[in-house]
Structures are given as C-alpha cells and as structure tokens.
C-alpha cells in the first residue's frame, strides 16, 4: 500500500471531481471544445493513428505516450481528465520522414488520453486509450 500525503491530496481531488457531476461534464465540454477547434467539427475516422500508452501508469507524473500517424500533417494530444487537457500539438512539415512523436505527460488521475491526427488530405482520425493511475501495492 502506498500511502503518502501527496497521493492522498491527489486522490481527494480526484474523488471530489467525480462527486461533482457538473464539474465533470464541463471538463468534458472543455475537451470537446478543444477537439472542435482542431477539427472544425469534421467527422473523425478510427484507422491510421496508433496511440501507445501504458494501461496502468508506473508513475502518473511521467507517463510515456507515443503517437504514430503516417501521412499526418499534425497530431493533437489531450489528457481528457487533467485540469488543462491540452497537452501538445505536433506539426509535421512536408519534409518530415515520419509522422511520429513520443513524449511524457502528467496525468492527474485515471483518464482517457486522446489523440487526433489531421491528415494531409484534411481528414481527421481519432484514437483514445484509458490510462489508470493507481495507488499501487498489494500485488501478488
């Protein structure tokens, strides 16, 4: 069991967000607004963007995230449950050898990490993966 004050504060914050539905839904609205701004409201496909994350974060403060979308012009990465969901937008110029990016992000708690790629033809692709941030301990 990992029981430090920092986790306790983080978890308490997480619990209060979950308890207050209006806050949660407005967070979702914020995510939707960022996506709408990026896509201009266009439909998003599901094929052609690979989002790689751990299923359970080893350390919520530094979670490795990779996006790979051959033929992308740019890729938006969102941490949908963070107070500030927008993490990064990677832009690939015409000379880029690969449309691939790898970084580490901080997650406030268990949430979906979302990536949206804008392809060179102007279409959009969306991928999402849940990353669990856990107290840990007690493993078999």
């Amino acid at each position: 069991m990992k029981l430090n004050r920092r986790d306790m504060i983080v978890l308490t914050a997480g619990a209060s967000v979950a308890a207050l539905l209006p806050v949660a839904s407005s967070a979702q609205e914020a995510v939707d607004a960022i996506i709408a701004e990026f896509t201009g409201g266009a439909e998003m496909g599901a094929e052609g963007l690979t989002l790689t994350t751990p299923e359970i974060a080893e350390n919520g403060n530094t979670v490795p995230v990779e996006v790979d979308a051959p033929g992308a012009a740019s890729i938006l990465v969102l941490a949908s449950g963070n107070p500030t969901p927008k993490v990064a937008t990677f832009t690939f110029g015409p000379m880029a050898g690969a449309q691939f990016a790898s970084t580490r992000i901080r997650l406030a708690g268990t949430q979906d990490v979302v990536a949206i790629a804008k392809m060179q033809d102007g279409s959009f692709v969306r991928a999402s993966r849940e990353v669990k941030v856990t107290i840990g301990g007690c493993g078999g």
Partner: protein
Amino acid sequence: MISRRDFLQASVAASAIVGASGFGNWGRLAAQQSLTQDQLLDFDTYGNVTLIHVTDIHGQLKPIWFREPEINIGMGEYRGQVPHITGADFRRAYGIEDQSRSHYALTYDDFQALGQAYGKMGGLDRVATVVNQIRAARPDALLLDGGDTWHGSYTCYQTQGQDMVNAMNKLRPDAMTFHWEFTLGSDRVREIVGDLPFAALGANVFDAEWDEPAEDFAPFKMFETGGVKVAVIGQAFPYMPIANPGWMFPEYSFGIREERMQAVVDEVRTAGAELVVCLSHNGFDVDKKMASRVDGIDVILSGHTHDALPEPALVGETIIVASGSNGKFVSRVDLDVRDGRMMGFRHKLIPIFSDVIAPDADMAASIDAERAPFANQLGEVIGTVADDTLLYRRGNFNGSWDDLICQALIEERDADISLSPGVRWGPSLMPGENITREDIWNVTSMTYGKAYRTEMTGEFIHTVMEDVADNLCNADPYYQQGGDMVRVGGMGYRIEVDQPIGSRITDMTLLSTGEAIDPAKSYQVAGWASVNPDTEGPQIWDVVESYIARQGTVSVPPNTSVSVVSG
C-alpha cells in the same frame, strides 16, 4: 487437408476425453490407493519438442501444504471460465472424482481430511526427479522457469535469494523470467543475473529513463531442439513498479507492451523460429487477452496468478499452460512441430505428491546444505494451530492466515483497523500442527516487510479499498494486477465486484463498535508491505511471531465480515 487449428482442437479434445493428459487416470488410481511414481510420470513421448514448465515456486524447497482457492471470481467475459471455477465445479469441469488425489491437489474443500490421506506436495528434490525422468525420455527438453523463484522463505530472505539460485542452477533451466526477484533490489538482481548459467528473459523490461529495451535482459533466446528452431520470449510481470516498490529497481520500466511482444514475435519468426513460446509472468487472464491480440505465439507458459490447470486453454491457435505455484506441479508439454508450425501437442500437469515421488538424492543433499546454517532458527516452535483452524491464504478475500496476521497487527500495534496485502503465495498449515518460525516467514517474508502504523480517514480507507478492488475486479484484465483483494482486520465491508471503481465498496463497519466508518473521522491503521521507501516499524514476521507466542494455541474464527456480491 486437416488444418493446424483442427490438430490443436483434436489435441485438447484428446486430453479431455481419453485422458491423454493422464489426468482422469491419476484421480482413479489414487482412489484405489495404488498410485506410484511411474504412473504419475507416465507419458507417451510425442512429437519432437518437449517443454518443462515450473513457475511461482516462491522459495519453497521443501514439501508443503497448499490449499487452492475457494473464491476466484472472473470478471466480465472471464466469469465462469477457467481458472475462475473452484471446488466441485472445477472437478466437474475436468472429470475429477470427489475425494481423489486430484480433488486434493486442485481444489480447496475437505483439505484437512484429504491432506492427511495424500500428504504434502512439492519439494524441489521431487521436482528434480521429475525433470530428470523427462530428460531421460527427451534429453534436449527445455526447462523454463516462469519466475517468483527467488522469494518467499526465511532462507531465501537471509541469503538474498542465493539458496534458490543454487538449487535452481542444479536443475539446469534453459531460461527464466521475473517478478518478485526485482524486490531483491536491482543491484542484487544484476549480480545474480550476471552469473546465471541460463537466459534471463524479459522482452517487456525497459530502461526507465530512455524507454528502450533494458540491456540486462534479453527479449528472447533461440534454441535448437529436436531439429526445430524454438524461440522462447520472456514476459516479466508487467506491473512491477506499481504492485511492488519501484524505488527498489528504479532503472527499469515494465508494462504489458503488446506492440513490443508482436514485434519480437515477428522478429523471431523472421529469424526462422518454427515454434514460438512465451514464458510469461502476466497472469492467466492477461495471457488469454494477449494471445487473442498478438499473432504467432504457439505456446504461452503462464505464471503469476498461481492457477493449476489440468489442460491447456486454447485461444485462437495459442495454447496457454498454467502450472500452479509453490512447487506443487510441473507441466510437461510435448509438441509436434512440422513444416515450421506447431501441429499438435500432448500435455500433462504432473502433481508433485511428495510421498509418491522419490526425492532426488543429490538435490535433497543440496537443499539440506542450504538450510543447515539456519536450522535452529527455522525449526523453533512459536505456537500451535488450534484443532478448529486450518491456516491458508489463497482466495480473492481474507484467508485464515491473513485474519491471523490482521489480528496480530491490531493487537501488537494497538490499531483500530489492519491491512494485509492480497498476495497469492504462502503455504497452508493443518489443524493441530506446530507453527515454526519458518512457517511464519513462509507467509510474510519480503524485502519490504515493515509494519507501519498510521492515521487514515474513513474516506481515505474507502479510496484505498476501491483502488485495490479495481486491480482485482476491472473487467479488462490488462487493468488488473493479478493479486487478490487487500485483507482487512477490524473492519467489515461489502463489495459488489461488478460495479465500477468508486462504487464497489459499501457498508464499511468498525467491528469493535459495530458503527459505520465515518468518512471524516481518523482511524489508527496498521499494515505492512508498503511500497513507500520510508516506511517505519517492526518487521511483520516479528509482529506475527510475538502475537502467536502470546497466544500459544491460535484459533481463527470463520471470517464473516466481508460480504461479496457478484453477478
């Protein structure tokens, strides 16, 4: 032309119906009290490749009692599937006769009576006899160790794993993967691995800083056996730094890394592998899911969740073999590999009945030599198990050993509530038996065993319970950690396993007063096995020893404080 899939299904059907696994047979023979070593090891050598699998030995060099779980709930689509059936349901599923040796070896009920009839199981000297006999039939059989080997006993702790390393080296494994080994600390692990006379594998062991494959562990090893190129890929426990203290091995990162597994499978196939074996410490349901999503693995030798299955599970064209824990079983898998593919198999889960299988004299002498320096410490009798009490741990919720440990924490550490980790290792003790120091260490030994005492609010206790419950009850096995629910003393609760995280745990009650746990109130909580680096307190084995010594004879009443709701 018969497809490979038909061959595999025929193999599974054969082992189920005519008992090619030998399974139905040893139940019947045992009922006649006529079981011999030859019958246990009887195997009609098949195909051209033999795999021998041992896993999750947890430091147990000597025969032990080990009661299998009564409660083992499967989540989502895994409910009702093996290994999530127990007791009579398990026996019906595999055609095991009631009161047979296989009833005793594989299910939980009537454990005391059957144990008296059939004796202890395991012992690495008996395992050596089995391995030697298989090698006599197939000299180039591959012996593969699924890990959780260098952990779990007094001597293992005192020698930092060296007793197990020495004993296993005599068995001459061909490859191994890892879990609790890392809790020896990464320096010690590298020290041992550097001298290991066999492959230390972990395709998912990464350098934490660079997120690249770690140099200290190879992803796979290619073997040539029976004229067949066999690739053995290692998959270490994916949740090391989460379920165990990451500060003990900060250089390494783990994870399931499904894409990495696929890439390594593709790499070994390209390199000419005709048979791809994954030596896994994922846990059974994670292995099932991985088998359904990664193409090209023929055999997964599954460890971590301590399941012992009389037949492999077939997922797509992958067979998954589960070989139990604590030295109770050895799996033998013979494979027919032709034209670059696995075409069929024959399998036997060999139960190590210690009174039936003769110990290998050489291994027995080595084990005795490892234990000799500690004989006085190991054998000291601390107390006695009451006649009304069987001490066991395994199961999704509190076992009686856990109840004893939780009560020891409450009384010795003057706490309201106690927490004990939901680990799956630790042998059983029979009613009326002496409790030695070795027995106490067998259920508590670890490198982060300090017993903390701290204040927690009712709300925080609830958060902890919910968090751990999700590690067990998440419907997606990739989000489970393969342990059981945290054991709780001094507090009752109700758990609805099918609810989402945050809604599973209700009716938390302080048992001493019968009052509901107040979210705003602080409680004194004692526990052990914290993953925090700065934990303070006495070692848990000293706490438990002191409690048992004061009690003399230990009786543990049935636990009625956890109410489990499923389905």
